């Protein structure tokens, strides 16, 4: 699946830990230095073994798994992937903002699942910075999708409001400068 990050389509440097793969004492597959994304169940079951590895660790959460459940472990992860089982399931928008704004998570925040071009604008604003997309639309189309609306009425993970009552004189000045 194509991965979008920083406005580019890139090869995903991360691998997912297969549900069935054994991780014993850090000595068997997958390799020690692979950057690995694990599920919450895998993390809970194999926490010690996973921490023995040298590679970076990522966590994948389902939309019914709140990051609040694992807030004290966040320091172990360089990436968190939040699932959108359907694009209409919007729980991960709240999770993303909580991770960024409350828990101070500064690693990669990845949107996975039913990630569509027209959701990108909202995802970026909530603090996501990488996107696993099914579509092969051109990168230009994706760029268009996120630049079509520039007036932001609310502060959110990605930055302050630029218009309206919450934009204030400063926000408005910023919006003018950005145009």
């Amino acid at each position, binding site marked *: 699946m194509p991965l979008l990050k920083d406005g580019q389509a890139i090869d995903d440097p991360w691998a997912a830990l297969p549900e069935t793969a054994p991780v014993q004492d850090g000595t068997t597959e997958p390799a020690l230095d692979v950057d690995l994304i694990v599920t919450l169940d895998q993390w809970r079951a194999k926490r010690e073994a996973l921490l023995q590895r040298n590679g970076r660790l990522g966590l994948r959460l389902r939309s019914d798994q709140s990051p609040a459940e694992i807030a004290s472990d966040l320091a172990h992860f360089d990436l968190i992937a939040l699932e959108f089982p359907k694009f209409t399931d919007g729980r991960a928008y709240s999770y993303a903002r909580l991770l960024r704004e409350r828990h101070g998570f500064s690693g990669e925040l990845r949107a996975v699942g039913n990630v569509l071009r027209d959701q990108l604008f909202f995802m970026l604003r909530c603090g996501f910075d990488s996107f696993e997309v099914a579509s092969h639309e051109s990168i230009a189309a994706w760029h268009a999708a996120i630049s079509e609306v520039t*007036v932001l009425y609310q502060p959110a993970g990605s930055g302050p409001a*630029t218009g309206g009552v919450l934009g204030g004189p400063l926000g408005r000045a910023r919006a003018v400068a950005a145009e």
Partner: protein
Amino acid sequence: MYRYDEFDSAFVKQRVTQFRGQVARRLAGELSEDEFKPLRLMNGLYLQLHAYMLRVAIPYGTLSSRQMRKLAHIARTYDRGYGHFTTRQNIQYNWPKLEDVPEILEELAEVEMHAIQTSGNCIRNVTADHFAGASADEIEDPRIYAEIIRQWSSLHPEFSFLPRKFKIAITGAPNDRAAVRLHDIGLQLCRNDAGAVGFEVIVGGGQGRTPIIGTTIRKFLPKAHLLSYLEAILRVYNQLGRRDNLYKARIKILLQQTGAEAFARQVEEEWVHLKDGALTLPAEEIERIEAYFAPPAFEGLPPSDPAFDVRRFEDRDFARWVRSNVAAHKQSGYAIVSISLKPEGEAPGDASAAQMEAVADLAEAYSFDEVLVSHEQNLVLPHVKLSDLPKVWDKLVAFGLATPNIGLVSDIIACPGLDYCNLANARSIPVAQRISQRFRDLNRQHEIGDLKIKISGCINACGHHHVGHIGILGVDKKGEEFYQITLGGSADENAAIGKIVGPAFSYDDVVDAVDSIVDTYLGLRQDNEKFNDTYARVGITPFKEKLYAAA
């Protein structure tokens, strides 16, 4: 009235351009209907039984005459010459062509209007008291805060994919004309013991198949914290609201399943983190918005007007219209005029292009350029001089807009029903038309007095039947239309859900049933007792006995 600043204009224009692109992709076959659906819904475009339907937002129900003329122009140019005002202070066009919709949105943007968030599982158009800025019982104009909420909720990145649609209503007056106890969030402006103005926050009201009266989760919220508190409520709901069952996804169900106290605690716990943060409203920004809603330049006038009094004395039709359609204004010498969109035998809430233009002209000449739209599907000229009332009435008569029935038995709320809607089980509009024909004697209507009849064509309750004094719900019995009747509902500050009176009536019999209920009421009422007071005193039995006596 609020006027767009350069950011608001840019925002709406960008959305038009965006949607133009999406429609082009759809027409070119690059998008399937399935892929296009969420995009068009974000712009208020539904696919109905026969055609597309475009729902245009009228934020907090306020229009200038210029905006009203534009709505008329759109009806004439892109539709079949009329529009339908809804129970959420929107207007719907039932017959637009898909390829015309970007052009319609472009025209709307010219007059600071749009169709954003009139559908989909997001925060919908915020509604407000239709006497806002004019009624004597108002603490503050609720539209100041409705506008602030409009801004905050516009393309909110976190709350555009909620478990279900989300409706907020706000009133500035203790007499609730905005049904705040029947919304996902209702806000009631109030004063605390120290005399400061803030909000009572009511959550989890709603109609649909599970009608529930909202619960107050905070008695007093200072103005500065309005948005941070709303964000806390929405954040709790977005994470915990049910997504497994469409019919259990509204916040009212979450509140019931969590328990009101526990839910309020969750909101307060979330709010602790948000309070005093970036969502805090600066006092100068509240004042900036408030200035847009400053009272117009009223003249100092005596509380009565000789010409008005003479006309009322000499012209019984005029006097009758004044009695039902004219309400007291906060300013001496002025009145609030309600324009009925419920003439005998017509579809409730429909207005022709010519009628819209007539109302625009009247607003411009006699009401400081302002028209309000009520959730009861009527229009309001909020600031008319008593001395101008005869002229206003004459013109309304000429355009078929002077039906003297506001709040009376033929002032019926009805959903579009089976004539338009693909969810409906039964027709609503023809039932409303037949009831208004049965009660065509206006003197009899005035004798009956205030009586709210509300009709829904299915359990989704778009016609608000649960809160009608007499509620009528269309049901499907083996492929035939039947109508279940409820009594004693109310949407005001004494909000109540109506009780089912007994077995449903056929399409042919439902009007007789309403007539029987009205007769029972008239026979039992004491003095000037209102329908719900009589009902509360005598109970459902006398109504039932008379209704089912023959059976």
